């Protein structure tokens, strides 16, 4: 995939290229894992549910690739803010996938517990030898856990430098994936010891954590799409650039007061800096301030300065550091 991301500095463009490659590799590996689990699943309803949930894990890499492809397009008259929101939309889709996965686990595990369903696990015969099918499930799930653990850690390394929230949701999804695998191993082992409820109970336990991640990502995605104050990836705190822009503006000699509002467009921010001048500044002075604000970070390329006689009090409060 060519990287015509003109809004990105060269090193970030390179990083994005590597993240894209990682996502293609990730889709390939997960497809192999899903096929493997599918071959072992057979008639087992529990394993089939695990399979459906694994398939959901393909969604975040896909929306990441679609989002990156879309954000490559430059801004123009029809799309004056560019196409960065594709990342935010991807974050929303990825968080919905997490929620569906968590809900599915709660539903299946919960109904299994309430209805007292006792999962039957028989034997598998292989080359004249037989073994309990539970062993095969445990081995396959243990193997299937390795790729999500490694891929999730790799993806988190890209999330912060690229300011990509789809990657954090993706990493949460992979965490959900290997935790479900661990729950299946614990559950099947429990069944082996005659605890019929072990599999359902283990599913409900991990589902709580998955739902928590799902709600967290959904809340953050909706906040960003509703133009909430920009935050770092996987955080509710104001992004440090809020304060940084305010500091640059207020440290300018001709500026008496300033207020910043900054929203996350996806990868990059859109910021408006309201400044109250002490005297009438020259056009050069205003343009110099704008240039310095834009140069403070690659994410603040789309920053405008608004001259005003009074900062808008309703937005000023929290972007200003205490004291």
């Amino acid at each position, binding site marked *: 995939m060519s990287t015509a991301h003109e809004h990105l500095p060269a090193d970030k463009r390179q990083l994005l290229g590597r993240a894209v490659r990682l996502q293609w590799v990730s889709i390939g590996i997960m497809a192999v894992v899903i096929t493997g689990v599918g071959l072992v699943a057979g*008639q087992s309803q529990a394993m089939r549910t695990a399979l459906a949930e694994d398939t959901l894990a393909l969604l975040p890499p896909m929306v990441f690739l679609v989002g990156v492809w879309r954000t490559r397009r430059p801004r123009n008259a029809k799309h004056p803010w560019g196409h960065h929101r594709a990342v935010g939309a991807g974050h929303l889709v990825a968080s919905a996938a997490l929620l569906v996965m968590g809900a599915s686990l709660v539903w299946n595990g919960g109904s299994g517990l309430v209805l007292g*369903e*006792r*999962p*039957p*696990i*028989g*034997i598998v*015969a292989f080359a004249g030898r*037989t*073994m*309990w099918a*539970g*062993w095969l499930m*445990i*081995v396959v799930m*243990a193997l299937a*856990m*390795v790729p999500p*653990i490694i891929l999730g850690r790799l993806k988190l390394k890209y999330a912060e430098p690229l300011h990509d929230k789809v990657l954090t949701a993706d990493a949460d999804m992979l965490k959900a994936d290997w935790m479900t695998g661990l729950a299946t*191993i614990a559950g099947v*082992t429990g*069944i*082996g*010891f*005659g*605890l*019929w409820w072990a599999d359902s109970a283990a599913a409900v336990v991990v589902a709580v954590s998955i739902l928590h991640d799902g709600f967290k990502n959904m809340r953050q995605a909706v906040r960003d799409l509703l133009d909430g104050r920009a935050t770092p990836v996987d955080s509710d705190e104001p992004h440090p650039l809020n304060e940084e822009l305010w500091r640059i503006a207020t440290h300018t000699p001709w500026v008496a007061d300033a207020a910043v509002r900054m929203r996350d467009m996806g990868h990059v921010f859109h910021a408006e800096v309201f400044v109250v001048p002490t005297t009438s500044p020259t056009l050069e002075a205003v343009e110099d301030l704008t240039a310095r604000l834009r140069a403070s970070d690659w994410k603040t390329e789309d920053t405008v300065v608004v001259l005003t006689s009074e900062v808008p009090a309703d937005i000023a409060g929290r972007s200003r550091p205490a004291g």
Partner: protein
Amino acid sequence: MVIIRVLSALLLVVLMAGCSEPGFPKDPDGTLLRATGGELRAGLSPNEPHTSAEVAIIEDWAATIESEVVWTEGAESELFELLKLGELDVVVGGLASDSPWSTHGAMTRPYGEVIGPDGKQRKLVLATRLGENALLVSLERFLVEEGLQP
């Protein structure tokens, strides 16, 4: 990575537990233990020509665990309700592997094949009580040892 090490340790423990078979897997209600040297409660829903062979299979298997089979004859629906309630241990009735009764009983691996009324191949199975996995595994091992498979 720590997680991988913990996992392999876990796997080792689990595989070591596997050497202690046949105590593993266990029945939640201990059906196999109870039937061994005791009574096996079997349901029969006549469905010839399959059920004569199936009754023989159950009798032969019961002999290997020194169990005496007590047969209850009835309709499939009635027998599966009893199986679900735990008042029967196994049910035979010329059942196919795609039988809708899998909500009420655990279907064994297929022991034979038959052409259904729609001309499609159907796999013949027996049913055991849901979740009594030691019982299921014991019967399935018997089927494999006797070479009873399609």
